């Protein structure tokens, strides 16, 4: 009988830790324009390669190239840039507000703005997102009022969620934005159910599920893929791979699979990887996937390759687990700067107009904040009522909760 050597446990580790030189040389990046664009009714087994490549439109010179280019007008792109700038400005102000104690908690999108902003453009009124906490671009790009977002963040007297939810856990049915859960991944399979319902009712609306790279390890990710695959649900299964899950690098969740997109292949679900910092590429891929869904061809999985430049949340300091300069070394650049450059190359934008737009947007955000603050912030001014604790647990308040409300003096 053959003698085998001792086993040992393999524990994946990031290439570099604090103190080391950032190194992304292992990230395999396809040239912009090089990945083909299949028909939307392509069979999943014929496009497996797309799960291992990266679809990109904007090249280093800021030009839009290849088969995925050419879908957006100047106007649309200018609006897209404005959305991303607005989200970034909003984030900066709210993070500051958190530092000032106006709210308890904040989560920003720095570096990932293109993903949710460009995706939103591919949706129609009535479609439904099941987002995580890092897709506020879906609201911004749908012109959901910033003041409402801030009211929620400040848990003030105008908070649409009446102080019940953690800051940034927005909800807006009207804007196709399902109530955010603090529990990871749960919403992924719910999106599939929503899409199944639309199909059951012979409706034309589609759903979009959202998840982070780290959270794909959760069980609900599997349930979602199983149900989406079996019932060919009209849903887009989005994975935002921003390289990190709090302190844990993506290798822990990804294991030996090469890419997160590859997860779809085991289910016969077409899976695409896209440069998540390329507004044009994100839009193009999103449109492809939504068209598939709308034509009843079933689900599509999209992995957005991006980078979380900021901390995980306002409670996190990434310098404890990754080099401080890692984000600068990130090879896919900054989504705002890249689109800005493209628009300049296109001849419809300039450094000056950009600076001016920045100022305008900042002003808009500040105005919104001023208004929101007149309704209170977490520890000052108008607040939701103690009554609000007891309401809405059920459609109708049952006797035991009424007794408790009375005991609380309300």
């Amino acid at each position, binding site marked *: 009988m053959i003698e085998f050597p001792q086993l040992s446990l393999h524990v994946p580790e990031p290439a570099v830790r604090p103190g080391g030189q950032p190194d992304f040389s292992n990230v395999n990046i396809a040239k912009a324009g090089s990945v083909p664009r299949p028909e939307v009714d392509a069979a999943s087994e014929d496009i497996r390669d797309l799960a291992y490549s990266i679809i990109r439109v904007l090249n280093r010179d800021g030009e839009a190239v290849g088969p995925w280019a050419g879908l957006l007008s100047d106007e649309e792109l200018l609006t897209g840039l404005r959305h991303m700038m607005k989200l970034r400005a909003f984030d900066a102000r709210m993070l500051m507000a958190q530092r000032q104690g106006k709210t308890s908690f904040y989560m920003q999108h720095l570096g990932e703005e293109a993903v949710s902003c460009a995706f939103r453009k591919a949706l129609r009124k009535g479609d439904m997102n099941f987002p995580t906490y890092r897709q506020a671009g879906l609201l911004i790009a749908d012109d959901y009022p910033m003041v409402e977002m801030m009211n929620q963040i400040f848990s003030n007297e105008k908070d649409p969620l009446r102080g019940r939810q953690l800051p940034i856990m927005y909800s807006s049915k009207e804007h196709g934005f399902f*109530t955010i859960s603090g529990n990871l991944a749960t919403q992924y399979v719910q999106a599939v159910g929503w899409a199944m319902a639309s199909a059951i009712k012979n409706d034309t609306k589609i759903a979009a599920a959202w998840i982070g790279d780290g959270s794909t390890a959760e069980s609900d990710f599997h349930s979602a893929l199983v149900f989406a695959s079996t019932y060919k649900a009209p849903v887009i299964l989005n994975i935002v791979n921003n390289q990190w899950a709090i302190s844990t690098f993506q290798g822990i969740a990804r294991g030996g699979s090469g890419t997160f997109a590859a997860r779809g292949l085991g289910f016969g679900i077409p899976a695409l990887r896209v440069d998540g910092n390329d507004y044009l590429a994100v839009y193009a891929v999103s449109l492809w996937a939504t068209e598939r869904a709308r034509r009843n061809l079933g689900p599509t999985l999209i992995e957005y390759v991006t980078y979380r430049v900021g901390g995980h949340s306002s409670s996190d300091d990434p310098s404890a687990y990754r080099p401080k300069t890692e984000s600068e070394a990130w090879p896919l650049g900054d989504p705002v700067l890249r689109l800005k450059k493209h628009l300049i190359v296109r001849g419809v934008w300039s450094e000056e107009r950009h600076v001016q737009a920045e100022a305008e947007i900042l002003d808009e955000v500040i105005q919104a904040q001023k208004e929101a603050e007149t309704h209170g912030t977490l520890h000052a001014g108008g607040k939701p009522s103690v009554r609000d604790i007891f309401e809405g*647990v059920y459609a109708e308040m049952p006797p035991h909760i009424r007794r408790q409300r009375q005991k609380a003096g309300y």
Partner: protein
Amino acid sequence: MARMTMIEAVRSAMDVSMERDDDVVVFGEDVGYFGGVFRCTQGLQAKYGKTRCFDAPISESGIVGTAIGMAAYGLKPCVEIQFADYMYPAYDQITQEAARIRYRSNGDFTCPIVLRMPTGGGIFGGQTHSQSPEALFTHVCGLKVVVPSNPYDAKGLLIASIEDPDPVMFLEPKRLYNGPFDGHHDRPVTPWSKHELGEVPEGHYSIPIGKAEIRRQGSAVTVIAYGTMVHVALAAAEEMGVDAEVIDLRSLLPLDLDTIVQSVTKTGRCVVVHEATLTSGYGAELAALVQEHCFYQLEAPIVRVTGWDTPYPHAQEWDYFPGPGRVGRALAEVMEA
């Protein structure tokens, strides 16, 4: 009026609901073509088509997760968990999602789903086909918890549950599916056709969630029970010749506290019966409430008769099951105290 078993009553409730409301959909493991391992959904796929009644993959979290999404869309899913023992993979979706969607979105989204699940022992199902997890639901605000004890109630309560705007856990005591089992496992089973509560209207009716029913009037002691234990309690009272008032809760959450308090105020004594394990079972909540609200009327400690704090054993099933003997002894104990 028709005579129905509890299986037929449950099926009829779904049938009536699907007929009246296109938004009602039914799915779960083996519920489609086959009609469910207990045959509760038999015929529904043939009648309403396979997009309104269909088989699901074996994934309780997926079943509940997709049901929540469907409810958010506007449907009213009534899903089957094959055995209550298998709801645990869905416990996260049930407690962290279904139960809180209305609250956390301030009513922007809601979750009108029903989870039907066969519950309880008495069929030699061992530790994974016998569980009574109701207390794991009653601790979770945002859920409703219903346990019928007969065909008439089962149908009326299931229709009410499907029409309810909030998530309802609908626990079906499987030992009652075919007859009013009183715990005398060595005697022949009476079928529902011989029981007045086996008379079930064919059409639509509903029984409000949150109202208990007194199954036996009495003045000496109050027995609080639900599901199978209602019949065990009735048998025990008869056999012991104790003038017991037997309350069938029907709904555990919300709870009909008024009916309980009225009864115990009258009797001054109380026995709580359930099949689930003792510690932190729903009986604990009932005992806590009764002592709180009837402290000055109580003449004896409240006694709980329940499953033991062990897994449900296979071979020793009848030594585990709180049958009429144990309930009878508890009645005697309370009366003597």
